[in-house]
């Protein structure tokens, strides 16, 4: 355990000491938030308004801002939990590139211990950056109009941890096969640009083509994004009734902004979202363990 603890500490310290990696990781969520606000903020605000205006009702600017902020922060966290995990795994790839991993292997440390240390440090680093982003998000949401209950905050923290575990597992498997700086840069670029769309973070599922919506609903990341949307926007959307808007518009808003997911015509309850995401994490962990075992077996066979 001492070995694992020190390896994890080494990996984390390497990440936080490398300003070239740390600064972009910390800035990425803030830049993303700024881009969301600057380019998509008005789109979301008008979308929110249009749902209730269809029934001839109107929402106060503050409430629209609260709902929009919930959407932006939840989308941001959903993307960061996965994309930051890939950045954090850069330490593992760098160790391969610089030969540090070969150097580590002349010590009695087991290959599995080394792999597990990268996994744990990636999780810790990603969680740390995501919680910083969450903190910044909460500040923004408080300014926009706070509608979160203690339960929402607690569940949001749980969602971030679960999504971080999902991102860590996903990146640990993919990065295992990456052996160059160019390779990890390509993977990071692909994940950063594609994952946001594929998990329903960059645009509501309702705005997607039907075939794409069906595809996205088959991917586990979507359920994590849905949970974050529900916990960070649900309170603000419920508050809509306080402004005299009938409950059917609350449902419409929830469906329009992915707080309630729909899987081929069946509503997906919150517990099912946790089940899907939890199962995805379990599968990723199993694949990771199998890969570690396969590597060990492969080397023994030689």
């Amino acid at each position, binding site marked *: 355990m*001492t*070995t694992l*603890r*020190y*390896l994890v*500490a*080494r990996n984390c*310290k*390497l990440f936080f*000491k*490398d300003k070239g990696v740390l600064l972009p990781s910390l800035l990425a969520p803030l830049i993303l938030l700024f881009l969301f606000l600057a380019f998509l903020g008005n789109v979301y605000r008008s979308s929110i308004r249009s749902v209730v205006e269809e029934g001839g009702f109107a929402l106060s600017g503050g409430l629209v801002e609260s709902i929009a902020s919930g959407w932006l922060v939840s989308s941001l966290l959903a993307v960061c939990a996965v994309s930051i995990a890939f950045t954090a795994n850069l330490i593992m790839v760098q160790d391969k590139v*610089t*030969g*540090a991993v*070969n*150097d*580590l*292997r*002349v*010590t*009695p*440390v087991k290959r599995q211990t080394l792999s597990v240390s990268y996994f744990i440090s990636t999780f810790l680093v990603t969680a740390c950056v995501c919680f910083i982003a969450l903190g910044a998000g909460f500040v923004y949401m408080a300014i926009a109009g706070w509608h979160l209950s203690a339960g929402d905050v607690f569940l949001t923290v749980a969602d971030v941890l679960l999504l971080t575990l999902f991102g860590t597992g996903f990146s640990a498997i993919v990065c295992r096969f990456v052996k160059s700086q160019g390779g990890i840069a390509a993977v990071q670029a692909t994940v950063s640009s594609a994952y946001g769309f594929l998990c329903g973070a960059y645009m509501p599922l309702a705005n997607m083509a039907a075939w794409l919506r069906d595809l996205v609903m088959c991917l586990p990341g979507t359920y994590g994004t849905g949970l974050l949307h529900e916990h960070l926007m649900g309170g603000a959307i419920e508050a809509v009734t306080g402004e005299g808007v009938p409950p059917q518009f609350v449902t419409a808003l929830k469906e329009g902004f992915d707080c309630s997911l729909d899987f081929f015509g069946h509503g997906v309850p919150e517990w099912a979202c946790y089940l899907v995401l939890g199962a995805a994490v379990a599968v990723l962990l199993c694949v990771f363990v199998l890969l570690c075992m396969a590597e060990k077996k492969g*080397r023994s066979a*030689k």
Partner: protein
Amino acid sequence: MNAIEIEHLKKYYGEVKAVDDVSFTVEEGQFFAFLGVNGAGKSTTISVLCGRTPRDGGRVKIGGFDIDGHLDEAKKSLGVVFQECVLDRALSVRDNLKYRAALYGIAGAKFTEKLQTLCDLFDLEGFLKRPVGKLSGGQRRRVDIARALVHDPKILILDEPTTGLDPQTRRQVWDVVHALRKERGLTVFLTTHYMEEAADADRVVILDGGKVLAEGTPLELKNAYTGDFITLYGADESELQKAGLDYEKVGNGVRIFVKNTAEATALILKYPALFTDYEVTKGGMDDVFLAVTGKRGERL
């Protein structure tokens, strides 16, 4: 007792026989030089020794432990310094040593004690908190070696440790290594391209094409693969020609190649008038290396 025993070691990469039936031993406390051109199989052999690369045949024992079944014990006997510095450049010298020591179960008070010893030995105190990336080449090398010795290994493997270093830093590195050998009886396994470094070795193995071509002490190798040179100063060339001696002009004099010291003595006794100002020198390790790996057909 042998520190390293290698018997019939084989490592193939497809058709390429990187190491082909190599056998040798390194005695405890010995300074062992492992020489060969690039691609001769040195690094592959080291990689197998360290348990990093699986082998295709043969037996390897490190510090008395067979690496089949006792790899961890064997690894604990080894400290390795690679040609390329693999220290974590973003971390301080202290952190690099701390994290390495922990891999051998050395932490807390035990590490603090060990750190002090290493600081005294390698004079690290002045830059202990500095990131490795900001150290000079010589300082980095000292940290590299200190890190390899953090767990008190019996054997230190140095894979071209002085390549790219300036002469002063090379001297510093060797002073430390030789001091360790003297004080602790450390076994040193060296690969190098600088033949003068191998000249001080207790035993030398020359590898080429994955096979051992020559082994012995530097003196044995010099005697077997090179001759002696007599350098004559102020000699009359016409007299040399009359005596039928084959010579070449060098600097202020001429050089005559002889097979060995006995032949040199015989020549001097035969033509005493010619040899008034002269010196007899043995061929160097450079000559041995070239003879074994480049011109072996002529002299083997």
